[in-house]
């Protein structure tokens, strides 16, 4: 019976791993089929085959082009069903290949000469998104140092903005930051000059709230947010942040949100475990920064409050183009210049630009736009410290998801619930633990205990605590953050005994000292003499056995041992030792009497 259980759990894990393999995903679309006849066939033999084809399947094959005669390359209209039928028919003896005639699309590659240096745009998958939309008829407000109309913004549409620093209509830039940010969102594109922008048919609303030094007051920022919402902007980008929680700013954001505006903000550049304000507020999409390899940029904030990640760049001496390249002004001379900059300031406008693309295909409502952005992001596995939020921004996936007529309402509501912000003291990352494997491990530990039920006090609290501690820990605490405090205590409480080794530094790998029979052995040795704690020790030993079996089946990644059969063997061996130890200890403990 025990062996049956082990085999069953193992098969379950294997099926899980295989069915989730991305190689099984759809590989393209086609509505015709290519026939490549053997070179040694004569024209009359081929004619005969074509006639049979036409009689049997009612389809006519023709040469692909004037040059296809020599290769005997024919195409005919048909779908996957016809393809399968042809591959099974006698025809296959006369051909070298019967293949789907996959459609390849020319990508929308802009002619801007420095587009090749914009690794950031390719990394968010922008080209296929441009096939669908370029952000037409959406207004994006850029709340920043102002925007100067540099040559590469000449074809970009503007609406009336305002300068809240100097109280005037002209919101030109005297710092260079705002113009750069605006460039990422809507740099004039396909204009044979400079670089490209994400939603280059959208309209920009310049709102200057930061001085030439790059700082400004929450009063001005709050006013600018309300101005944007009242003047028809439907996306706001704020590449700015601070450390003070103010009522005036939160109210302004809630006002804009309730008027249907998507608010995006930078998570901050202090490499700390919490988004800055205003990114931290509930109705703001908070963006952390990636470098050109897709890893967290060294300066980027992470953890509590981070919703999604996007390219922010990282400039190092050997690679100045690791930054985000846009045209802006030189603050000293006011002249236009192409410069790479880095920061979550550069990451936020990527998300604001894609939000504009989403709105231009008809999905306007801010909560739905946030849902689409996060649901379509490329998920980063094992993101224990929440460097990436929902994942890496993906423009094409976002636009495609937004175009689907009916979003799955159930998914949407689950997402709303999982992203529940309760208040500014704490925050919950709903995606941090996969619930099913954890529940499976707890159930598995109970199953192991059930085999030994003759020796165990099944209703005992000590035993139950041991089973949970060993198998899953208080796993729901893993995604729990208190703003501005380290998250490690929650990761430790949220870890099972085998996971403790990686919990402090947030590593997803199992440490072989912790994921083994070692700790259960010590617990039993120390606690077997105690009337209450002995059941905790037995329970945690069985719990560890269940956790190790589950890990071997689903995710056997062990430090120094890799993720292959070596790791799997190590985990299963230790699971066996734990179960053996647990049953010996249970027998010994029960002969000492049920005192729990």
């Amino acid at each position, binding site marked *: 019976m025990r062996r049956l259980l082990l085999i069953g759990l193992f098969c379950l894990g294997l099926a899980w791993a295989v069915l989730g393999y991305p190689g099984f995903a759809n590989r393209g679309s086609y509505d015709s089929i290519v026939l490549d006849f053997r070179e040694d066939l004569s024209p009359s033999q081929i004619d005969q085959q074509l006639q049979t084809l036409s009689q049997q399947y009612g389809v006519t094959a023709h040469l692909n082009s004037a040059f296809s005669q020599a290769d005997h390359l024919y195409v005919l209209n048909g779908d996957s069903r016809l393809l399968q039928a042809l591959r099974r028919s006698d025809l296959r003896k006369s051909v070298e290949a019967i293949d789907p005639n996959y459609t390849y699309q020319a990508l929308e590659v802009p002619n801007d000469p420095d587009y090749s240096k914009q690794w950031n745009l390719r990394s968010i998958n922008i080209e296929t998104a441009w096939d669908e939309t370029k952000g037409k008829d959406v207004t994006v407000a850029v709340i920043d140092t102002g925007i100067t109309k540099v040559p590469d913004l000449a074809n970009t549409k503007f609406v009336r903005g305002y300068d809240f620093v100097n109280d005037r209509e002209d919101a030109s830039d005297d710092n260079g*930051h705002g113009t750069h940010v605006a460039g990422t969102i809507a740099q004039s594109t396909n204009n044979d000059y400079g670089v490209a922008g994400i939603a280059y048919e959208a309209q920009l609303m310049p709102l200057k709230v*930061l001085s030439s030094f790059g700082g400004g007051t929450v009063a001005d920022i709050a006013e600018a947010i309300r101005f944007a919402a009242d003047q028809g902007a439907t996306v706001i980008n704020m590449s*700015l942040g*601070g*450390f003070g929680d103010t009522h005036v700013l939160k109210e302004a954001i809630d006002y804009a949100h309730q008027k249907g505006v998507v608010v995006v903000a930078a998570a901050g550049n202090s490499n700390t475990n919490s988004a800055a304000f205003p990114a931290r507020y509930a109705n703001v999409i908070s963006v952390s920064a990636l470098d050109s390899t897709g890893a967290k940029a060294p300066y980027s904030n992470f953890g509590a409050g981070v919703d999604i990640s996007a390219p922010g760049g990282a400039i190092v001496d050997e690679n100045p183009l690791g930054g985000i390249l846009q045209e802006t002004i030189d603050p000293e001379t006011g002249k236009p210049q192409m410069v790479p900059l880095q920061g979550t300031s550069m990451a936020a406008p990527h998300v604001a630009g894609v939000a504009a693309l989403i709105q231009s295909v008809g999905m306007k409502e801010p909560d739905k736009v946030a849902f689409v952005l996060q649901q379509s992001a490329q998920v980063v596995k094992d993101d224990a410290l929440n460097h990436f939020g929902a994942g890496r921004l993906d423009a094409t996936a976002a636009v495609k998801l937004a175009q689907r007529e009916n979003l799955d309402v159930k998914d949407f509501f689950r997402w709303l619930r999982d992203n529940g912000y309760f208040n500014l003291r704490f925050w919950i990352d709903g995606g941090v633990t996969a619930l099913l494997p954890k529940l499976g491990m707890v159930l598995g530990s109970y199953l192991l205990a059930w085999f030994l039920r003759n020796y165990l006090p099944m209703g005992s609290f000590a035993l139950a605590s041991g089973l949970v501690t060993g198998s899953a820990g208080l796993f729901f605490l893993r995604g729990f953050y208190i703003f501005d405090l380290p998250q490690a205590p929650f990761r430790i409480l949220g870890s099972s005994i085998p996971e403790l080794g990686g919990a402090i530094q947030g590593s997803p790998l199992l440490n072989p000292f912790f994921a083994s029979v070692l700790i259960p052995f010590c617990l039993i040795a120390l606690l077997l003499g105690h009337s209450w704690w002995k059941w905790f020790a037995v329970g945690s030993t069985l719990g560890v056995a269940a956790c190790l079996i589950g890990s071997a089946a689903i995710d056997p990644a062990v430090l120094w041992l890799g993720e292959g059969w070596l790791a799997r063997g190590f985990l299963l061996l230790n699971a066996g030792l734990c179960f053996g130890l647990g049953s010996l200890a249970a027998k010994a403990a029960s002969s000492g009497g049920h005192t729990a």
Partner: protein
Amino acid sequence: MITVEGTIQRSGMGMGTWALVTSEGQTYEIHQGAPKDLLQPELRVCVKGEIRNDVMTIAMIGPVLEVKSFELLKP
């Protein structure tokens, strides 16, 4: 009013800004208008000033410190 000891550094965030980094690794962003004599890389200083929670910036490297006065420390 707070007193902070640390080293002046140039930060590459945003269009560039000045930072005061303490020996514990806490970074403050120096608010605009600080004396020019203070803004020199690797200067060891003791700064008296105020944290401006009502200010937001493009650099976002840490709390914004408005300098009221400062003293040079021996390197």
